[in-house]
């Protein structure tokens, strides 16, 4: 049969081929024709191109963190990465038994909490004083649509100073429980890689970290606390995440860069 005399039939067969309902012998025959006939081949390819994007229309879902770990293992990234980490200067106090964080260290709550202990009681007192002096200047004028008058007076119930890995304070978080908001003040250098976001986490005494939202890139501004209560968290931490935040709802996917204890002010 000369299929070229029936262009509409060819087109429909190509469509059924691409969508997958052309099966068995009919499918093999069309494939055979396509291999020898440029018109039929083009018709097939056009239909495949029309339908291919359908796969993208499916709603996104979050895979569990174990998937990435398995990929790393299969591709042998894990050993390569720890080797690379070993080369990075300077190795701090080589004599001390430095416990390298486990590969999935961000899942390890003890690690988070251990880190948060860096903030001493003394620092906390200094902090409360600092909060009082900083708060009236609050978020920059452009960073909130609300005026100070509309907000009412901020009542800071809890504060946290978040340190970086070198124990330098970089971020002050003042939690206003009455207004369900947190005011962030940058205290030190906050370096954010391009196309990344900083995500703020509450670390409870037990259980997994809870996202408190995405921070402004500058490190200054407000984050809405919503239903979150500061009493529920022993510490706060910041991780570097893809825009939109960690794909894992139960914890950071990227490195934790800052952390500190969350303390009541009164």
């Amino acid at each position, binding site marked *: 049969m000369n299929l070229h005399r029936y262009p509409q039939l060819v*087109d*429909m067969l190509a*469509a*059924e081929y*691409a*969508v*997958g*309902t052309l*099966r068995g012998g009919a499918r093999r025959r069309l494939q055979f024709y396509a291999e020898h006939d440029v018109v039929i081949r083009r018709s097939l*390819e*056009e239909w495949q*191109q*029309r*339908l*291919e*994007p*359908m*796969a*993208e*229309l*499916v*709603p*996104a*879902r*979050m*895979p*569990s963190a*174990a*998937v*990435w770990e*398995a*990929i790393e293992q*299969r*591709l042998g*990234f894990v050993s*390569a*990465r720890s080797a690379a980490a070993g080369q990075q200067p300077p190795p701090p106090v080589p004599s001390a038994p430095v416990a390298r964080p486990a590969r999935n260290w961000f899942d390890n709550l003890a690690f988070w909490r251990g880190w948060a202990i860096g903030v001493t009681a003394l620092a906390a007192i200094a902090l409360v004083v600092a909060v009082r002096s900083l708060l009236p200047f609050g978020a920059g004028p452009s960073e909130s649509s609300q005026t100070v008058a509309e907000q009412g007076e901020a009542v800071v119930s809890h504060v946290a100073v978040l340190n970086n890995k070198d124990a330098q304070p970089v971020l002050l978080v003042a939690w206003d429980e009455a207004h369900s908001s947190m005011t962030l003040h940058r205290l030190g250098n906050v370096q954010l890689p391009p*196309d990344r*976001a900083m995500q703020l986490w509450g670390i409870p005494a037990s259980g997994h970290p809870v*996202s408190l*939202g*995405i921070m402004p890139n500058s490190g200054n501004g407000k984050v809405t606390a919503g239903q979150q209560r500061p009493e529920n968290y022993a510490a706060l931490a910041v991780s570097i*995440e*893809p*825009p*939109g*935040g960690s*794909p894992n709802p139960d914890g950071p*996917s*990227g490195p934790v860069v800052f952390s500190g204890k969350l303390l009541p002010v009164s």
Partner: protein
Amino acid sequence: MTANTHELTPETLTELLERIAREDSAALRELYDVAAPKLFGLALRILSKHEWAEEVLQDSFVNIWRFAGDYRRGLSAPMTWMSAIVRNRALDHLRRVNTQETEWSDALDDLVATGDPDPEALSAVSLQARLLDGCMQQLEPAQRQAVALAYLRDQSHSEIAETLTVPLGTVKSWIRRGLAKLKSCLGGVQ
């Protein structure tokens, strides 16, 4: 949480694939961060089972790592290329487990939205996908379901008839009419 979708632009994804082709493992991680949810959604739609979908996602990223060098920009959008890998892995998995299970009807409802498309979600997909989405919306719901089942789940006419509990002839005509409508809506391939 504000979903910043600009990382899913074809340009960004193409750059990542080029870095991956040069064996840059950090680029694979970046690609995973931005593309895995979308691709996992696809695997889950085809397979229904969480464990299977995760296995397929894992397989797919291993494949993306190995074959990123084969990706040719211009031939297809990067998201389309990756989706094809996931779909093929998923269908392969489905054939291997040889399942007749179909927990599909609910999934169909949000497969190709019948209501307002979420503009933010759509900005994350390729232009071609947005065009296709617009045209899929113009099909009758039954036609849309039949076409989606055939393409995404690789179901035969009779399997679809069983899934949707309608006669075989009805399914055939839904798919034919659906495809014809899609063609007149999408026009020739650019």
